[in-house]
């Protein structure tokens, strides 16, 4: 069983899940539970975005549209139709895929910055729609009245502990799936396109189709993140579909590192901790955050995990062990 095999991923995933499940027992802190739930929502979102940015070289400024759609469609399905949670979840992911297919088909042809801004435009269209369609979405006040949570298969999401475990499970499964995608033949084709789309084209790779597939897949995982978020705040807010969410996603990737699969997860933790603690001590949140950003951008010049891993690889190579250079390096745009 090599480090690359699916079995290895599953093993690591199981271990991670076990640890997450034990954490609240070791530290019985409701805040920790809340933190992890939010964290898994953002981590799923950011990792899916990095699937596009880091592996596909497609910098989307509109990825938040899937986060928003995920939150809204799930919350609405639960409120309007009494369908069981798993069904609503599946249907929501389906909708995200559909949206990804439509938007992607139009966007992925475009180059770099134009791709970025066209996706942004689509996200803002969705946002305007949410604001506009008050009877359905509740407009700018968001979807109110809470989300009904009928128990299913012994899972009762009205119980914060159950929600915690469910989010952890979704996170781990989502990460395993995405890591598998990244390590699949498709994943490497995607890397080729990121590095040199023209050449890939002359090697008989259907660039458009591969990009579109990536866009749809990323959208689906982002949607799952949105679902967790809607359950956490038991509602949905237009902010979830606003471009700032996409911005935060990008920001998370930059903090954590876009060359390492788990970079976005690390980034999520950094950002949430910053957000939760900086605001406690100062009204000058922006100033503080801004300075920290500069330290990253001008100091580290890489995401945290990238820095760590590169250092580690250097160690290994020095030690003479054949280190596998990271398949990915800073390519986006």
């Amino acid at each position: 069983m090599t480090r690359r095999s699916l079995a290895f991923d599953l093993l690591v995933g199981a271990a991670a899940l076990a640890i997450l499940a034990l954490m609240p027992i070791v530290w019985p802190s409701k805040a920790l539970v809340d933190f992890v739930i939010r964290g898994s929502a953002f981590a799923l979102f950011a990792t899916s975005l990095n699937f596009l940015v880091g592996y596909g070289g497609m910098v989307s400024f509109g990825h938040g549209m899937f986060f928003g759609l995920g939150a809204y469609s799930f919350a609405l399905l639960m409120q309007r139709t009494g369908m069981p949670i798993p069904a609503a979840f599946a249907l929501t992911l389906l909708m995200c895929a559909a949206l990804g297919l439509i938007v992607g088909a139009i966007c992925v042809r475009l180059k770099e910055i134009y791709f970025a801004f066209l996706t942004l435009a689509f996200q803002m269209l969705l946002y305007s729609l949410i604001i506009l369609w008050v009877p359905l979405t509740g407009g700018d006040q968001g979807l109110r009245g809470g989300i009904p949570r009928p128990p299913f298969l012994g899972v009762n999401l009205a119980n914060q502990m159950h929600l915690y475990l469910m989010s952890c499970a979704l996170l781990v499964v989502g990460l395993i799936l995405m890591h598998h995608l990244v390590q699949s033949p498709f994943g490497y084709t995607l890397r080729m396109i990121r590095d040199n789309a023209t050449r890939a084209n002359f090697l008989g790779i259907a660039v458009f189709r591969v990009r579109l597939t990536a866009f749809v897949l990323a959208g689906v995982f982002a949607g799952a993140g949105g679902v967790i978020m809607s359950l956490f705040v038991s509602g949905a807010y237009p902010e979830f579909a606003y471009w700032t969410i996409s911005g935060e996603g990008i920001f998370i990737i930059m903090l954590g590192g876009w060359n390492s699969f788990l970079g976005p997860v690390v980034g999520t933790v950094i950002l949430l901790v910053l957000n939760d603690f900086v605001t406690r001590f100062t009204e000058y949140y922006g100033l503080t955050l801004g300075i920290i950003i500069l330290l990253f951008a001008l100091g580290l010049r890489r995401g945290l995990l990238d820095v760590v891993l590169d250092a580690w690889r250097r160690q290994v190579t020095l030690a003479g062990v054949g280190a596998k250079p990271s398949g990915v390096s800073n390519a986006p745009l």
Partner: protein
Amino acid sequence: MDFATLATCLSSPACLVTQATGGLIIGMLLFLVAAGLTLIFGVLKVVNFAHGSFYMLGAYFALTIFQLTGSYTLTILGAGMATAMVGLVFERLFISRVYGQNVLMQLLVCYGFVLIFDDAVKIVWGPEFKSMGMPATFQVPPLFIAGGVVPPFYLFVVGIAFVIGLALWLLIDRTRLGKTIRAAAYNPNMVAALGINTGYLYGFVFALGGLLAGFAGALAAPVRSLTPGMGFSVLIESFIVTVIGGMGSIAGAFVAALAIGLIRAFGSLGFPLFTDGLMYLFMVLVLIARPTGLFGKEIA
């Protein structure tokens, strides 16, 4: 949706004049910001996310200078200069460190400064919104052209904006410096090979961008309320403009800015609740039709 109003307006000269000038003023101010943005991208290939902050700083500088001197002319010039200086320093000290790096890194640096500038303004000028007030010269009743209402101040603003735009075009298109800038946009190494210090050149371009944004801020200050973060909505709109016009094309920015202005002016009649949506819709349509914007060239 309210097509009736739109239809009646389109059939009445008075309404056309009023709405058109309205669109013009929105467009021209937008153009000043967008021009700097597109110029910086064209030459430095940097997406200056902090450009909205330049506009904000311009407005706040204007507020202070106006309170001190009371002369609006000085205010405009001073605000422009001051913002240009900020742009220069910003480029030399920070942006120059991330050239050739991953574009996201550049974005991140700019974003960091958006946050910093906003709080800096909060510290220096206070969190509450401010209003500069209309210079006495322009505290006069509006003109009536073909039954349409046209405030003299807006005529002035549009005029100035046109002059600035023209000057910019002459600078880029007719002068030696302009040639160098265009050359740098096309091929920096060649310019460097010619023994021109690209560092200074880039600094200058950023300062120029700052100057334009500063002017825009100063021209907007009398009629828009000043708050930390005011640069934001303007930034987004000017991005839309630059993208629609084609990143790096000043002519494109001009056309797109006017288009957006008119869309807002007439859209608010026909689609009072979807005016913003219209802008994005327009952008989507343009990019579908022309993937690199109206005047955009294929980016290497």
